[in-house]
């Protein structure tokens, strides 16, 4: 049978096999991927996007984020982020968080009663992030401390904030 999905599996098998050093294990990995579920012992590829889909359905109000380094194709790990909220006269700091190896924070940034209607800013330390992993950039870099501004309009909802970034640009959106 010559089906496109089989060709894909073969390609993946040969690629993954090189990393695992075992065809049987590679085949198991390949089969599991084909079903959409990575095996429990899936090899952690250093720096690769290993995060499995995370469903937030049914959870209470919260603000979560996900930093994705589109320059390296990896999670944005160790990104320092300062959250502040506008109090009518300016943005006042609430807390500073650092992203985990999966590019998310270990806990929601805000959860339940801490989620309040208002204008927020997440100040992300891009320049420090790229300096830490040895990326050579101009000094000062084009993007140093990057304000991500957004509004929470309903304190009863979940707000997910993915930020996709490179040293030269970024985008963010209300995720889910």
């Amino acid at each position: 049978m010559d089906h496109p999905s089989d060709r894909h599996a073969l390609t993946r098998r040969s690629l993954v096999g090189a990393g695992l050093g075992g065809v049987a294990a590679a085949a198991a990995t390949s089969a599991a991927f084909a079903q959409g579920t990575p095996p429990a012992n899936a090899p952690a590829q250093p720096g690769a996007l290993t995060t499995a889909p995370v469903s937030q359905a049914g959870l209470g109000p919260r603000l979560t984020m996900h930093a994705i380094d589109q320059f390296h194709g990896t999670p944005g790990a160790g990104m320092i982020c300062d959250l502040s909220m506008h109090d009518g006269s300016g943005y006042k700091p609430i807390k500073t968080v650092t992203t985990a190896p999966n590019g998310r924070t270990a806990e929601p940034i805000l959860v339940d009663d801490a989620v309040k209607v208002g204008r927020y800013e997440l100040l992300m330390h891009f320049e420090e992030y790229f300096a830490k992993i040895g990326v050579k950039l101009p000094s000062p870099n084009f993007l140093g401390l990057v304000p991500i501004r957004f509004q929470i309009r309903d304190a009863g909802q979940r707000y997910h904030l993915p930020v996709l970034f490179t040293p030269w640009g970024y985008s963010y959106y209300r995720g889910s």
Partner: protein
Amino acid sequence: MAGITTHVLDADRGRPAPGVRIDFSAFENGAWRLVKSVVTNADGRTDKPILPGDEAKVGQYQLEFHIDAYLRGKPGISEADIFVDNPVVRFAIFDAKQHYHVPMLCTPGNCATYRGS
């Protein structure tokens, strides 16, 4: 050509965003100073460069895009849809001889910016 220019695009509709107010500030003596406010023209650009090349200096600059006012009143958009209200782009001129084109692509739930050309 040096200096700072921008282009605001309504990525929801795939067209330029006219009439968007942009507040341009520079970081001077430890604080942000509003240099000028400009409004995008029919092409989503400003009639003149935001910062002319002969005035460009190494330093930190900021563009605040008043997207919420632009989006309000557009058909099919309710206030509650506006997640990205007034995105702010802070960036450095690290070489005053270079041109810094900083576009803003916006929708109610998303925005994107980058160093363009």
